[in-house]
């Protein structure tokens, strides 16, 4: 299946943008536009008003040659399948901030400021995103003073207000993040989030492994949606060159991506049932989830990290009789899931705990840049599988599926969206297995060499929302990328969380945090900066350090 690039695209982009800019057509309807740093803000305003959505604002450190600021916009709402990458080159790390223009760039700019040392002029929120708040004062032995006092913009004014840290260790939250909630009595007045407890510097680890073996590290970012990360990384690398992935490999990729979504949604429904105190809901949904895990384990050999994704295809074939057996199992599982989840969804007490809790209107979702079920729960028909599909089978002619939305705009709507999505995924899985059990074919194409200076954006619909990878090929070393940037869905949903928390009851805070199904391991996966903290490391130092580390 050749990845068509639409010729009329360039004319469309030229109409929108002011003239006198340099355009470059990338693979699969992505257009790179080279602009000056000054008019970044103007263009951002123009695009947002036009109806585009900022996927990610990031930067690549070209060490001697300064920085390259990248703003990636998705136009799928306005014109089907178009992604524009604005590239601005700058020597000095002072860049005008677009945080005021769109809420979506706030977290991205905080991340760039603290980890690449780029100063943003006029940034609405200067605090650290992933590092302890009092960085760069050296944190002796890792004891983080920051967690005690938080210079937040939530001063305690009245007497009856209290500041409750729902801290890194809280049974309601599986992972480590601190949500600071200012409470009057039991009602939440203001909220803020401190992430960074999972900060492992994975992006630099992936860069140091080269293209082929980077998949190994990309899968380890998040235990629940490891399939989605594998597919997104592989799609991004294949976008770098004219890739030709065999058909059977595409079907196996779709199969694994949808199985991953099924087990992730079943897991989530169990966790929310547990958070509102309903152990039976937890037990029954996790009992069903074991059946999905059996199918995944039979196909890939491991329940969590599938280890099957390779650039140019898949490393393990699905024998036909196993596919047939799995299809029958999925059919049985499908109506059992629909019956049980129908009962779970309209249980009166579950409804009373979820309806009207964690409200997020359509405007808030669009401005804040919510993704995935959180956006679809607020009546925004947005799904990467329909807009910019990854290298897997998602076009409606081959596999019938549809995007599920709900206009409830609250936690209950998000629950309904995830339940229906689960059944849609089960449909896709049985169709894929049916096709796999009938046909055979080779599953891996030989990867060709990466052209110098190529760049690519890989998008995929993870269970929690849109997952974006950006890779810039290095212009010197044939196998090592210049830089990899990852923007995970929970990164966006977490940024929107304070909007939902305001005005809810203290008992509902874990429920709302559960309703966006956040995955903290995804949110903190970022860059490396040097030991002497003050200045970000140059390319030679980074490569020298990594060479010492990895023996080349």
């Amino acid at each position: 299946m050749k990845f068509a690039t639409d010729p009329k695209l360039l004319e469309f982009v030229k109409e929108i943008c002011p003239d006198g800019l340099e355009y470059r057509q990338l693979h699969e309807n992505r257009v790179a536009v080279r602009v000056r740093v000054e008019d970044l803000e103007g263009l951002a305003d123009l695009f947002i008003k036009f109806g585009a959505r900022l996927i990610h604002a990031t930067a690549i450190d070209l060490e001697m040659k300064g920085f390259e600021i990248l703003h990636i916009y998705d136009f799928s709402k306005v014109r089907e399948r178009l992604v524009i990458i604005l590239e601005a080159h700058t020597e000095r790390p002072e860049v005008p901030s677009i945080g005021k223009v769109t809420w979506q760039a706030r977290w991205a700019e905080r991340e760039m400021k603290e980890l690449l040392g780029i100063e943003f002029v006029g940034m609405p929120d200067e605090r650290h995103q992933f590092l302890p708040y009092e960085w760069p004062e050296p944190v002796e032995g890792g004891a983080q003073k920051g967690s005690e006092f938080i210079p937040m913009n939530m001063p305690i004014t009245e007497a009856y207000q209290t500041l409750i840290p729902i801290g890194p260790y809280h049974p309601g939250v599986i992972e480590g993040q601190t949500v600071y909630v200012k409470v009057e009595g039991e009602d939440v007045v203001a909220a803020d989030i401190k992430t960074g407890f999972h900060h492992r510097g994975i992006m630099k680890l992936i860069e140091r492994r080269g293209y082929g073996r980077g998949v190994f590290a990309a899968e380890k970012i998040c235990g629940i949606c490891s399939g989605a990360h594998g597919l997104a990384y592989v799609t991004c690398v294949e976008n770098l060159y004219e890739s030709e992935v065999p058909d059977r490999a595409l079907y196996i990729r779709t199969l694994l991506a949808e199985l991953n979504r099924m087990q992730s949604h079943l897991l989530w429904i169990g966790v929310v049932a547990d958070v509102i105190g309903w152990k039976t809901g937890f037990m029954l949904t996790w009992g069903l989830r074991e059946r999905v895990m059996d199918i995944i384990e039979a196909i890939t050999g491991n329940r969590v990290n599938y280890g099957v994704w390779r650039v140019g295809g898949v490393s393990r074939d699905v024998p036909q009789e196993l596919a047939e057996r799995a299809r029958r199992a999925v059919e049985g599982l499908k109506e059992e899931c629909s019956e049980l989840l129908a009962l779970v969804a309209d249980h009166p007490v579950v409804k009373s705990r979820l309806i009207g809790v964690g409200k997020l209107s359509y405007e808030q979702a669009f401005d804040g840049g919510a993704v995935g079920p959180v956006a679809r729960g607020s009546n925004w028909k947005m799904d990467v599988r329909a807009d910019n599909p990854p290298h897997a089978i998602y076009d409606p002619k081959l596999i019938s599926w549809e995007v599920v939305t709900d206009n409830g705009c609250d936690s209950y709507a998000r629950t309904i969206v995830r339940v229906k999505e689960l059944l849609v995924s089960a449909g896709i899985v049985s169709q894929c297995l049916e096709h796999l059990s009938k046909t055979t074919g080779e599953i891996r194409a030989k990867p060709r060499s990466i052209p110098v200076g190529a760049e690519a954006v890989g998008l995929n619909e993870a269970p929690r929302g849109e997952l974006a990878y950006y890779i810039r090929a290095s212009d010197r070393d044939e196998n090592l990328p210049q830089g990899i940037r990852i923007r995970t869905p929970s990164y966006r949903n977490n940024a929107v969380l304070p909007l939902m928390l305001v005005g809810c009851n203290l008992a509902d805070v874990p429920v709302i945090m559960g309703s966006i199904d956040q995955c903290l391991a995804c949110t903190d996966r970022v860059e490396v900066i040097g030991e002497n903290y003050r200045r970000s490391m140059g390319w030679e130092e980074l490569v020298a350090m990594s060479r010492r580390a990895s023996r080349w």
Partner: protein
Amino acid sequence: MGIIERARVYSPWIYHLHCGGCNGCDIEILAALAPRFDVERFGIQLVPSPRHADILVATGCVPKQFVPMVKRVYSQVPEPKVVVAVGSCACGGSLFYDDSPENYAILGSVDRVIPVDVYVPGCAPKPEAIINGIVQAVMKLNHKKG
């Protein structure tokens, strides 16, 4: 063995200590409580507070921001306590292990912060392997005098 030692073996309460991993192993620990592997058959319960815990099940490659919290939680658990490190990240810091200059964000494995008694390697070990590790940890409970 006396009544108290026998009671220790019959009702080991576990506390899930999350040290910054990718939550793949945490989900497998919760799967050990789910209907298929149901560890409550032997009285094993997941307790919400470290004060009530006997066995600390640690997962994740300890990022530096977690170090003070992990030490504080470890000190809160009352004696005869046992630590089980679940997953390659907790046992040896799988791909985050960095033998050359210390990684600025990661400490690597849990035994650099707290003493670990049983290691269960595997990138998301199966729930059976985790239960096998917990059973071995229960046996060690009695050697550690309260």
